[in-house]
């Protein structure tokens, strides 16, 4: 897997070639991050595509005092929230909102209902407030540090840690309950 520093250098040397390296590393993680938030494949596809176009166009704005991964996930998160806001007729969803996404509402043909426990886990995650959802997803699925989560969500590492632990507790409670 190409190191982020090498990707940044490659983009600076040759935008198109460097960007291909960037996508090779981040295309799937970014898509899945967005998919977990918006659920529908079509929406995730739109937001992921827009994310990479934005990354390309605003690459000059990246500052090395922030983790490259966190910067990318920040853009992806914003695109996902923008899409959810549009779907809900809002101007822009904030991280304090609870995304009104349910699996029943958004599931499409690219959804496997046969994985009962995995479906329940996603349902549990989708009941969480956005900040907890993001902290949990970034830590659990993307192995991000609390510092990176904080940079991606514009908060502090301590807050990211609290949100992650609150999310885990609520998920466990949900999974131990009889809720389907």
């Amino acid at each position, binding site marked *: 897997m190409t190191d982020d520093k090498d990707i940044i250098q490659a983009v600076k040397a040759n935008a198109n070639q460097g960007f*291909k390296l960037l996508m090779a590393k981040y*295309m*799937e993680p970014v*898509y899945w991050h967005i998919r977990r938030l918006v659920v529908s494949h079509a929406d995730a*596809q739109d937001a992921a*595509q827009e994310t990479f*176009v934005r990354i390309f*166009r605003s690459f000059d704005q990246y500052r090395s005092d922030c983790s490259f991964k966190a910067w990318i996930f920040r853009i992806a998160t914003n695109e996902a929230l923008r899409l959810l806001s549009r779907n809900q007729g809002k101007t822009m969803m904030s991280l304090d909102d609870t995304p009104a996404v349910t699996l029943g509402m958004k599931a499409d043909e*690219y959804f496997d209902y046969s994985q009962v426990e995995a479906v329940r886990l*996603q349902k549990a995650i989708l009941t969480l407030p956005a900040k907890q959802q993001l902290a949990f997803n970034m830590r659990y699925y993307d192995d991000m540090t609390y510092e990176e989560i904080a940079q991606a969500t514009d908060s502090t590492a301590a807050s990211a840690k609290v949100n992650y632990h609150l999310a885990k507790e609520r998920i466990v409670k949900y999974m131990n309950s009889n809720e389907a």
Partner: protein
Amino acid sequence: MKHKDMKQEFDFDKIGKQMPYNVPENFFAQLEENVMKEVGQTTEAESGSRQPKAKSFKLTANIIRAAIAAAAGLALFFIVQKSLPNEEPAATDDFNNVELAFNNLSTEDQDYLMEVYQDDLFMDSETY
């Protein structure tokens, strides 16, 4: 793994990172292609291929400006023409008076005037 310390009944490890979501075949390759197509267009546009477009836009703008100026000039001409009717009868009256005065002259005087003014270009240009 960060979630191993969970002592509750539910065990995250049983599910791991499994998700009930999937994607169409070759989706990621297609997505990459779509993105490159979109940013490729941006790159081309930013790297100068947009210049001829800008030039042709400038040319079109100039043509439009010239057409607007011509139309405005034509409109002004008609407006001025419309405002002239009050003067035209006066000019016609002047001409009739001159003609009447000319007719009242004797044949010799008429012949003399015709001889003097028939080659007067300045007088002709005034008529038109």
